[in-house]
Each structure stands twice: as C-alpha cells, then as structure tokens.
C-alpha cells in the first residue's frame, strides 16, 4: 500500500479542483478535518491506465503559498511536507484557469519552485475560447518540461489525456528558475513564460457572465430574483420537506411498535423504544430539511450565484461587522441552525466565521414553531388568526434583532487578529454539475448523521434515564414524571425560574427540551395528560392538553399560563440554546468545546435575563 503514489491537486479557489477530484475519485473519497484546524481534508483513491491504484489529495484553495488564511496555511505546509498527519505529495497537479493564466500561474510558479514532479492542468478552456483567449499548451510544455493538459473538468473533457499523464512512471520536475524578488518580479517572470503561448483577440465582447450579471445583480431585478429564490427555498423547506419528514416519523413509530410487541415490558424495552429509537428518530427527522438546504446552497455555490448574493448583501451585513458571505449561513439557520453553521465553511475569515456560528442559533429555526404555536394559542385563547400571526411575526423580528445585536457585540469583543480586507471574488457563471452537487449533499448528510448523531444518541439516553428513574409505583405517567430525576430537577429549579413566572411543571418542560426544543410539547402532554398524546390522537390530544393547560391554576388561584408567563416563555424560547445537535455541530465546526459551551451559556443566560425582564416589566402593564 505504501507504494501508492500521492497526487495533490493545487489551485486557486473556484478553479474546479473539487470537480476534478470528484471526476477522478467518484465515491472513493473521504472527508475529514486536518487535526487541530477546521480545514477540510479531502482524500480519495483512483486507478491509472495500468490499473495501479493511487491516492488523490484535494488541497484547500489558495491564491499564494505565502499563507494568509488557515486554508492556505494547510496547503503550504502539506506541500512543504511539514504536516505530520499528511505525507509530502509525490506529484503535484496544478490547476490553472486558461482564461486568466497570469494570475493562476502566480500560485503555480510558487508550487513549481518546490521542485516536485508536476502536471499542469489548463482548466476551463471553453470559457477561455469564449473570451477570445487561445493557449498553446505545447509551447508551455516545452518551456516548463512537464505535461500541460488542456481540460474542461466540469464536462470531463480532457480526462483521457490527464489519465495518460498520471499513469506515466517517470514524471519530470519542472524547469523553472525560482523568482527572486517581490510580487511584481514574479508577474514579470510569468509574462515571459506566457509570451507567445497565449493569444488574445483584442475585440471587446460581452461575456455570458456579463449578460447574466446585468439581470442577477441589477438594482431592481437582482432583488426580485434573490427574493424569489429565497421564497422557493423556504417553501421547499417548510412545505415539501413535510412529506419525507412524515415518512421518517411514521417509520420510527412503526419501528418502535415492532420492538414493543416483541419485547417484554420493562426498563430495557423502554430504553430501546423511547431512548434509542426515539432519540435517533429525533435526529434523523431533520435530515430532509438539512439535505434540501444543502441542495440549494450547493446549487448556488456551484453556479457562481452564491458570490453574487454575498456581493448584494455585503452592505447590510457590514454594519455589524460581518461580511456578505455570512448572509446565506444565517438565513439557512431560519430553517435549521445545523446546515447554517455547516455552511459557514464558505467563509475564509476565521473570525467572521466564528461570529456567524455563535449567532446562528438565535434565528427562529423550524423546531421552535410547534412551541410557539402551542404557547400563542394558550396566550390568546380568544385571539383572531391575525393577532396570532402578529405575535409570531414579532418573535421573528425579535430573533433578527438578536442576531444583529450579538453579532455587533462579538464584533467588538473578539480581537481583530486579521488585517485582511474583504475581497469577494466573482467567478464566471457555470452550468451546475448535478453530480458534484449530489456528492456534496451526500457528504454533508453523512457528516451530520455521524457527528451529531453520536452525541445525540448518548444524550437522549441520558434524558430518557432522567425521566424514567427513580421509579414510582404509580401507573400514571404524571406521577412517574414528578417522581423522576427530571421532575425533581424541575422542582429544584423552581425558585430560580419563579421570577420568570414559571412553575415546576414548566421547569420539567425546560429541562426536557434542553436537548431539543420541540420536546417541550410532548413533555407538556405527559405532564398534563399522563401520556404522550401528540402522536396518534393528535388533534384530540392537542385540544385536551390546551384545555388542561389553560385550566391550570397557581396556588393563588390565578391561571398558571397567564399572558405574562406565556410572553416570558416565548422570549425564553427565542433565545435559549436548546438543541444538542447544534452544540455538537458547533463543537465540530469550531474544533473546540470551549466555543460550544460558551454558546450554550451565553444564549441560555441571555434567555433567562430576557424572560425575567419580560415577566417583570410586563407586570407594570398587565395585571
């Protein structure tokens, strides 16, 4: 196995490295993080024309080997053989853009100076042709002494020639004299290399990208298109994904029933049905939404539209110290914070990325909806649909303000370590590659299930134990829950949550929904009805439980779910960090428990203060 050669793909961001990587390796690839940093490591295997297996490493995109971002630092270190976790590549495959060779050879010449055997891939030759640029690959080959392969990686044109080059036993080192001096000296040397090899027709022409941009970033049409795309995205997430989510829900319910019938009643059965199947089901149910979001994000990224969204939104995000690239991650979080946080990978600046991750869970994700709906119904028993919608709208506004407020705070708090300015590269538009989008969605789905799934499984078992032990003799679920550790915890925190207007039963709901907020609804059902009726007898169950909750009285005879208490609960749910999947994903994406724990503490702490203020201040206006 050790005799397998390692080929590293190197190039600027957006050059099509990943496309070529996918074309070479197909599904024989794995994605992990480089140890110690949050840079993605993509590795795969492929076979050459003689049937020999070789390894392919897709190095992070870089503009230069004088590293200025964590991505570039990894690329630089791997190429120099300085990383213990990755051997120095045997062969470097340098991708350059045929339509813009000057700039792409900036990195390529630096790489060639390492003296490793090299293959140059002249990618995007079709686009170059449209721009009137013709490159004589043979001339470059003669001057550099290494294979120069013209390609259109997205259409798999030139794969054959690349395979021939990859299969060669004796790959040459480039004939390139290291450049001494500054940036300008390197550009001069590149000019010499390219002179006579690149021809440009002088005629000015409107490129397809220009034509698209005239509409897509137009002061009026640009917004119309963007808003329509976002409307479609949210329709897909909230409406279309309901079908697969229903199937998954039904599937896990069926699985639980199967186990129930075949096993003896007891703690072990309850652990499997409620702890494990329930816990895993609670994670998997979000997959359709997450995959759909990733489909949209990949599509926008793949075509080049994502960069235009950043271009249009930068102004609105810069006020609080974020840049336009934070827009899509934050917006995605309104469906679910998990893909939102994972989508921050498109942001180069570690600081901007951290701020975006920290504020992402404040967005009102779809898991909050059932809780909002329940509490709004309790709060306004006689309210009209318009009044209820108005409250819902207010909650969304509150969360938007929260995102901006905390982004602003963190922007002041976190030290500015980088002096790099915001540069948005606007790549040429491309037809989407469905294959690549498919691979990306698959990859993201796997990451979510594996990373979030393991943490959640463990914690849902813990939560199951908290609500199950210690046992009471009563058959009634209400008594059991009150007797359990979770019930005791609810009672124990009663003095703490009393100033927010909550009693111990709501405390149990808060404790139980720490792992996932939508659990609040089913926990309330157990507390007030003695069993979970949110499943089968859903409609009937909802009505009964609302009546019970509305009839619930405090010791002083006042209704427990008063207007003030409901408002306070709603505000708490807007801000509180009650989603273990998000904690797990933040841990992975920031590569530290420190930030994950900080996020839980600051959000839950602020939720407490905000709910406290809401309850106390509203006391002056509402009896």
């Amino acid at each position, binding site marked *: 196995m050790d005799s397998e050669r390692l080929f590293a793909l190197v190039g600027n961001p957006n050059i099509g490295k990943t496309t070529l990587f996918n074309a070479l390796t197909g599904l024989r690839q794995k994605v992990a993080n480089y140890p110690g940093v949050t840079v993605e490591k993509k590795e795969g295997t492929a076979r050459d024309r003689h049937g020999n297996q070789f390894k392919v490493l897709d190095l992070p995109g870089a503009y230069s080997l004088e590293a200025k971002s964590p991505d570039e630092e990894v690329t630089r270190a791997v190429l120099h053989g300085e990383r213990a976790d990755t051997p120095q590549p045997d062969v470097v495959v340098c991708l350059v853009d045929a*339509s813009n060779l*000057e700039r792409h050879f900036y990195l390529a010449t630096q790489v060639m100076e390492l003296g490793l055997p090299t293959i140059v891939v002249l990618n995007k030759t079709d686009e170059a042709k449209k721009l009137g640029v013709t490159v004589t690959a043979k001339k470059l080959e003669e001057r550099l002494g290494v294979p120069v392969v013209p390609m259109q990686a997205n259409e798999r044109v030139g794969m054959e020639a690349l395979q021939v080059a990859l299969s060669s036993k004796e790959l040459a080192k480039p004939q390139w004299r290291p450049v001494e001096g500054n*940036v300008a000296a390197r*550009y001069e040397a590149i000019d010499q290399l390219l002179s006579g090899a690149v021809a440009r027709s002088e005629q000015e022409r409107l490129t397809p990208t220009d034509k698209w*941009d005239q509409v897509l970033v137009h002061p009026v049409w640009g917004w119309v298109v963007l808003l329509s795309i976002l409307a479609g995205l949210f329709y897909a997430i909230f409406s279309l994904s309901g079908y697969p989510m229903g199937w998954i829900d039904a599937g896990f319910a069926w699985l639980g029933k199967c186990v129930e019938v075949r096993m003896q009643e007891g703690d072990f059965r309850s652990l499997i049905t409620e702890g494990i199947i329930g816990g895993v089901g609670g994670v998997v149910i979000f997959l359709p939404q997450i995959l759909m979001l990733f489909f949209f994000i990949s599509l926008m990224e793949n075509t080049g539209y994502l960069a235009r969204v950043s*271009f249009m939104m930068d102004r609105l995000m810069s006020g609080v110290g974020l840049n336009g690239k934070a827009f899509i991650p934050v917006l995605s979080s309104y469906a679910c914070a998990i893909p939102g946080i994972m989508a921050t990978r498109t942001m180069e600046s570690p600081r901007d990325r951290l701020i975006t991750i920290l504020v992402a869970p404040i967005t009102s994700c779809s898991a909050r909806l059932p809780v909002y709906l329940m509490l709004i119904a309790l709060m306004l028993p006689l309210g009209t649909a318009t009044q209820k919608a108005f409250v819902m709208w207010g909650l969304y506004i509150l969360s938007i303000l929260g995102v901006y407020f905390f982004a602003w705070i963190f922007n002041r708090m976190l030290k500015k370590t*980088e*002096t790099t300015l915001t*540069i*948005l590269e606007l790549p040429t538009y491309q037809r989407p590659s469905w294959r690549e989008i498919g691979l990306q969605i698959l990859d993201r789905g796997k990451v979510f299930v594996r990373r979030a799934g393991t943490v959640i499984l463990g914690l849902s078992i813990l939560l199951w134990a908290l609500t199950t032990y210690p046992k009471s003799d009563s058959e009634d679920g209400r008594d059991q829950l009150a007797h359990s550790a979770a019930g005791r915890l609810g009672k124990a925190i009663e003095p703490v949550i009393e100033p927010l207007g909550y009693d111990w039963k709501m405390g149990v709901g808060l404790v139980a929904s720490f792992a996932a907020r939508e659990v609040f609804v089913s926990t309330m059902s157990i507390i007030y009805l003695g069993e979970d009726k949110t499943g089968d007898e859903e409609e009937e169950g909802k009505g009964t439980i609302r009546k019970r909750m509305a009839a619930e009285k405090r010791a002083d005879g006042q209704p427990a779910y008063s207007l003030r208490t409901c408002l306070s609960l709603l505000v708490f749910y807007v801000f509180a960090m009650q989603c273990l999947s998000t904690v797990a994903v933040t841990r992975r994406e920031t590569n530290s428990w420190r930030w994950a724990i900080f996020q839980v503490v600051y959000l839950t702490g602020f939720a407490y203060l905000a709910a406290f203020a809401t309850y106390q201040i509203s006391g002056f206006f509402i009896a």
Partner: protein
Amino acid sequence: MKHIAQLDVGESAILGEMKLPSEASARLEEMGFLPGAAIRLVRRAPLGCPIEFEVAGTRLAIRGVDAANIFVG
C-alpha cells in the same frame, strides 16, 4: 489624488499607489493589483457597496472604504 472608487462604471484607469495594511495590499498584489496594471470599475453593488473591479482578467469586489485607499497612477 483620484482613487479607484471615484471611477465611473465602465471607466478604466492605471493603478497607482495603495495605502492599505501590508497584509491586505499583499493579497491584492498577488491577485494582480500592481502599480501600472489596468483596472476597470465593472459595477457597484445594488446598495452602492462593495464595488466590482476587473484587473488582469479577474473580477473581484472590495468595499468602498478600502477602494478609497487605492489610487490611480
């Protein structure tokens, strides 16, 4: 002195001096923002900022405040 944010849409100029932190200007230089290179203002974002430029065949956008520190030669 005229800076590149003052160019009209579609107007070209020759790049002069950059007054930016060294790391920032190094990145721009690597991307082709060198004194003497031709630069063209392609368009402004719908909200006025950032501004898209074309230098050496590359399209990229930078913010108005940064562009105001890049002068024409």
